[in-house]
């Protein structure tokens, strides 16, 4: 016999009385901690501590342990001298210059290089940059990134920075592509997809491509100019927020809210982390290594054919006059189209030859970050944006480089260091 509606309700009442117990939900310690990391007053100090941990781990793992501890010795004391002794041709030979060591002029004499930053051959710098420095930086970065992700801290960071990022037309979630881009801009650009409007995606991609240095680049910078890192990041952060604010005002479109899932904190699963680390690092190497080798080859060829000198002569006045960096910076800027890490490495070579002041090193490193995304990111931008947006990105990029680069030079002049 079928039950009437009322009877059915009565039955439900009866069952639930016997099976369900009611009570107020009491916060557990985990909930309380989760709350602490999201509220700004307590969350910001926690974020400062977490980023400190992130950065110190990165420096000590990549810099102290692997690059300085083993790789510099391997490449500078064993690999480079060995190649210099066995590779046919010797100093001055075009093939030798391309593959091993272009050397540099000291007091009118061509001398061999001492380090793999200086030598600039496909087999020396071309291998040292990706395997000696960048690989370790990327591993360190993605390891920490995966841990933060799995623990559940990243979404909380997003909630925390939501207010600030709203000022530049983005919301908290934007911290995820930004953070990811600090590893490599390519996945960073892909991670922009969850943003809802074209405006937000455009803003995010442009800001990522211009102001976020990738892990490879950071690794090399940390190796070459550790004492300038604070200033470099500060300059980039100011640019990111400042130009984001301006772009948000000019670019038409809406920035709607999105709802984000904030999972509870949990212990990370090591298998999970290991596989993420492996996937990201191997993909990175697949993208990076060919470009670094190609970059070495192209720059080497341009030196050999005299194209580099010509470019240096043409663009030298602009570089010196507007940005305050010497004409030699042309070469790294060209290499930077392919790989930023390689380009910063070339600045290291210039530093070792003593032709740049500290401020010029600083300016050229910042310029390298902002002037153009590397080729891989460039291709990614083409894929993610339509033509109009892409041209818009490039145009705003050029404008930002000139305005910001000039501004840095101006500040340098005013402080009396340029």
């Amino acid at each position, binding site marked *: 016999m079928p039950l009437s509606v009322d009877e059915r309700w009565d039955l439900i009442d009866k069952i639930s009385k016997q099976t369900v117990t009611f009570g107020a939900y009491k916060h557990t310690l985990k909930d309380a901690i989760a709350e602490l990391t999201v509220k700004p007053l307590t969350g910001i100090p926690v974020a400062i501590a977490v980023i400190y941990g992130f950065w110190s781990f990165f420096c000590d793992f990549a810099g*102290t342990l692997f690059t*300085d*501890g083993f790789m510099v010795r391997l490449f500078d004391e064993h690999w480079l001298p060995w190649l210099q002794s066995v590779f046919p041709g010797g100093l001055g030979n075009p093939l030798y210059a391309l593959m091993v060591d272009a050397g540099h002029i*000291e*007091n*009118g004499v061509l001398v061999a290089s001492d380090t793999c930053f200086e030598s600039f051959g496909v087999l020396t710098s071309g291998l040292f940059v990706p395997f000696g420095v960048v690989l370790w930086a990327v591993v360190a970065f993605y390891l920490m990134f995966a841990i933060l992700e799995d623990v559940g801290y990243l979404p909380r960071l997003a909630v925390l920075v939501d207010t600030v990022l709203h000022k530049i037309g983005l919301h908290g979630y934007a911290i995820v592509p930004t953070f990811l881009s600090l590893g490599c801009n390519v996945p960073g650009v892909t991670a922009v997809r969850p943003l809802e409007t074209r405006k937000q995606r455009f803003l995010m991609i442009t800001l990522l491509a211009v102001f976020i240095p990738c892990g490879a680049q950071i690794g090399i910078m940390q190796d070459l100019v*550790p*004492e*300038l890192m604070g200033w470099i990041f500060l300059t980039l952060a100011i640019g990111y927020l400042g130009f984001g604010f301006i772009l948000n005002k000019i670019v038409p479109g809406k920035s709607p809210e999105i709802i984000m899932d904030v999972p509870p904190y949990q212990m990370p699963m090591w298998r999970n982390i290991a596989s993420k680390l492996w996937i990201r690092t191997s993909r990175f190497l697949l993208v990076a290594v060919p470009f670094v080798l190609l970059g070495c080859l192209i720059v080497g060829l341009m030196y050999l054919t005299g194209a580099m000198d010509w470019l240096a002569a043409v663009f030298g006045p602009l570089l010196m006059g507007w940005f305050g960096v010497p004409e030699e910076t042309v070469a790294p800027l060209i290499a930077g189209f392919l790989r930023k890490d390689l380009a910063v490495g070339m600045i290291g070579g210039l530093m070792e030859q*003593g032709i740049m*002041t*500290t*401020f010029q090193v600083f300016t050229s490193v910042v310029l390298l970050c902002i002037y153009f995304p590397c080729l891989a990111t460039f291709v990614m931008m083409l894929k993610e944006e339509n033509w109009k947006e892409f041209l818009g990105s490039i145009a705003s990029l050029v404008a930002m480089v000139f305005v910001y680069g000039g501004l840095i030079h101006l500040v340098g002049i005013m*402080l*009396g*260091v340029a």
Partner: protein
Amino acid sequence: MRNEKRKVQMQSAKLPLKAVAIVALVLLAVSSAVISVDAHMPGAKPLPEFELEPISIYDGDTLIDISLDDIGDYHGEICVCGGCAFRATQLGISKILGDEIPARDDIKIVSRLPTPGSRDCFQYITGTGPGIETKTKGEYKVILPDGTAVVNLSNKDLKKASKDNTLDNFRFEVCRKSTGECFEVVLKLGVFSEDYFELRKKVKFGIPENATSEEKALFKSEWEDTRDKFLTSPDWELFEDVEEPEEEEPDVVGGATFLSILVIGLILLVALVHSRKKAS
């Protein structure tokens, strides 16, 4: 590795100093283009980062600090001879007085080096040069290694006397007049490269023949390297009779203690967490 870190840190702490140095250098470059560039090295590369204590002396009852930058300003640039003279004076004073601060009129310097750079440095320190405001004066003499005293200290005469300069000229006697104590500062062999003085003769005096452009470039770079040594090397690398400081013994016991505490602590912690988990 940790030393390296410290070094890096030191360098960065000096950043503002470097900025000051660069500004000073720009000013110098501008001013030296106007003034004569006779004894100077035109187009020399910028100074390296350096950190030298100033020389403190009492001028009457006023305590003054003389830095190498002051001397560079007085002379027109920081050069090889100026840098050397500054370091030599500093060493000499510390050898005879230790940490005590000397009075300007208690210092006497006898230099074997007839060059404008060292003259300006010693005169600035002893307060005997033109255009220096001072209440008291020390003493400064130039006596060549062969014993002849150079009385006229004009640029022209000094330049003439400096033609045959060798390492032998780089000896300076720093004395405390009140007690008669002296210390002779002697430059170490190897601070200057072997061909430095020959090259100098060729480049500056055309003896035995005029220098080729390659030789000029070589001299310029050696000049810069030597100048940088006087700015950055420790005393024991530059001068005789200074002992190399012994390296600190690594603290193995301290390290081992810490490491064992760390390992034991870690084991205890893991055991504790494990037993707790089991209990619950």
